[in-house]
């Protein structure tokens, strides 16, 4: 039997493991606990290869949040199931794919019924922006439909174990997973909120209708006809080009965070982290809390990317931050056994002879995120590439409405920033919708003005977030400018 990598004792988290579940992984029986993802359960049992390329090369996991294609597998013969966001169930059969999957001719799929839903507002994504938008609209009495592709609500909040920075009035000082618990708890009290988990919004259609595929026990094809939509689909981790970057054991930093903080599975014994932004620094600290030795953090720039306080936390735990360093290659036969780092010159080119070899079984890539804008792009929203925001993101008004009338964006999908601004953007989008849908109240517009003022004239003026402020200004326009954009006069 392979060892169990589940974390028993953790300084911050209590992992509640209740009902045991067993399922089949090829010829093996895997023991898991209710609530775990298939991928987390396999990882805890020592599995590191989750699919094979056509030529037989094994593939590890990369994102662990249902955004990449590394862990697509057969579940009960249904191909292309993203097992990182698929919960374990009794007696399911999981098999790895090799290259393209077989045509699903014998999956014995039941007829999936279609259900039409009329709602005031559809919210896509239940991270900080989506949850806050949902709660705001629910409190005003609107009928809200919240869909989330993960089977749990909270987005990336559920794996944030640190106390949040920010304003006391905006969840500052509370650990991220506690904020998720609080918001989800509040939302559950409203009978005018309809929540669908394991539910993916797959596209906009005519008649103002959005298709949502709901999986799990009660499978259905939801055709939602809302008066307004908030797309709060978050972000995807970026990869990095280096030799053997596809070796199992090279993964996004957030994937390790998902394993250890969401599921309590220790991702490795020894790690190096590439990138010293806040994500790289915070996750390095959390790896140590989970019992992982962090051998080094590498940063290609001459200075540390993230905030000093985060850097100081890992430095005083003895972790070196190697500025002007990059990763040259990963080494190992079928999984990571070593990371080779190198110093770089002023043109970011590796300096021969400066290689440093680290015997590690995990290489975490923390080089930034990009907005998950695909649904908005399909909807026809005009998007713009903004380097400061991590990639393409829709043009929007100050009230968060995109060039598609009544389609709004909030959170990281609107450009990479952080949780405090995601909450605020979610609330601004919700209040703009309330005003548009005819909710006549001075208090609504006053609240919205206060939020906008705080966001733009207080919070985003902080020098450490200047880059994202510049980025957001590049894609934010007035109502008048947006009208011109819609008519094709601008852009």
């Amino acid at each position, binding site marked *: 039997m392979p060892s169990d990598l589940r974390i028993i004792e953790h300084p911050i988290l209590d992992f509640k493991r209740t009902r045991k579940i067993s399922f089949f992984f090829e010829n093996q029986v895997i023991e898991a606990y209710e609530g775990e993802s298939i991928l987390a359960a396999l990882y805890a049992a020592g599995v590191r290869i989750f699919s094979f390329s056509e030529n037989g090369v094994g593939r590890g996991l990369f994102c662990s949040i249902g955004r990449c294609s590394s862990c697509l597998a057969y579940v009960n013969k249904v191909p292309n199931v993203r097992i990182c966001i698929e919960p374990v169930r009794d007696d399911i059969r999981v098999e790895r794919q090799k290259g393209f999957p077989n045509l699903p001719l014998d999956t014995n799929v039941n007829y999936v019924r279609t259900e039409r839903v009329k709602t005031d507002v559809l919210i896509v994504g239940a991270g900080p922006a989506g949850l806050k938008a949902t709660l705001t609209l629910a409190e005003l009495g609107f009928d809200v439909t919240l869909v989330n592709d993960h089977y749990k609500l909270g987005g990336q909040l559920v794996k944030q174990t640190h*106390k949040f920075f920010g304003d006391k009035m905006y969840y500052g000082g509370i650990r991220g997973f506690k904020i998720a618990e609080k918001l989800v708890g509040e939302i559950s009290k409203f009978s005018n909120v309809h929540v669908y988990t394991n539910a993916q919004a797959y596209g906009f259609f005519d008649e103002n209708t959005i298709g949502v595929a709901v999986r799990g026990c009660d499978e259905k094809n939801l055709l939602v006809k809302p008066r307004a939509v908030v797309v709060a689909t978050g972000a995807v981790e970026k990869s990095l080009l280096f030799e053997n970057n596809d070796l199992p054991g090279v993964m996004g930093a957030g994937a390790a965070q998902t394993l250890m903080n969401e599921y309590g599975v220790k991702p490795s014994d020894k790690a190096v982290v590439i990138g010293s932004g806040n994500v790289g620094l915070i996750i390095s600290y959390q790896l140590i809390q989970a019992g992982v030795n962090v051998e080094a953090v590498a940063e290609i720039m001459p200075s*540390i990317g993230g905030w000093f306080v985060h850097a100081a936390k890992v430095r*005083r*735990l003895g972790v070196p931050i190697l500025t002007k360093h990059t990763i040259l290659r990963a080494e190992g036969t079928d999984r990571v056994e070593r990371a080779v780092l190198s110093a770089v010159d002023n043109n970011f080119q590796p300096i021969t002879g400066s290689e440093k070899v680290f015997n590690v079984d995990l290489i975490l890539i923390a080089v930034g995120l990009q907005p998950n804008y695909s649904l908005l792009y399909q909807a026809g929203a005009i998007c713009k590439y903004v380097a400061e925001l991590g990639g393409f993101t829709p043009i929007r008004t100050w009230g968060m409405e995109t060039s598609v009338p009544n389609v709004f964006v909030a959170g990281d999908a609107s450009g990479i920033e952080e949780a405090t601004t995601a909450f605020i953007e979610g609330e601004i989008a919700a209040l703009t919708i309330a005003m548009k849908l005819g909710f006549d109240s001075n208090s609504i517009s006053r609240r919205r003005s206060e939020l906008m003022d705080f966001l733009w004239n207080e919070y985003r003026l902080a*020098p450490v977030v200047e880059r994202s402020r510049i980025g957001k200004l590049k894609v934010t326009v007035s109502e008048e400018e947006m009208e011109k954009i819609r008519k094709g006069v601008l852009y």
Partner: protein
Amino acid sequence: MSYRETGVLTIEDLARKELLPSDERLRRGPVVILECPEEIPCNLCIYACPFKAISKDRIYSVPRVDFDKCIGCGACIPQCPGLAIFVVDLSRENYALISLPYEMLPKPEKDSIAVLLDREGREVGVGRIVKVWQYDKTWVVTVEVPRDKWWEVRNIRIQRK
């Protein structure tokens, strides 16, 4: 090299940010040291202080401490998301007392011995833990530190039994 390159603050850095108490104040008794030199959008320390000794002009200003109002109670230590707050007590002759945040395993116990670490995680000695308390899973640990190491010690490691 600056702390932006090293992740390590010097005593001059702190003095420049007006976050270093005077020698006289340090000798008088416990006092807070906020190792928070950057303009980050966060204001939790202001609300954490029962004596209103910490202030900020704007949410992103570098915090300002009124060292005469501060009694060194340490209430702010576990509420700082950056774990950047420490309390130093140089009022005793034989040793200094440092109170610091701790979020690792094993859990700290009063009267046990901890390994003292500096800002780079290097061992600089051992010290007795004289007080522990916890707020939302963050421990505040007060340790005895050789007096001449009061500026260096900013972390501890506790050996498993």
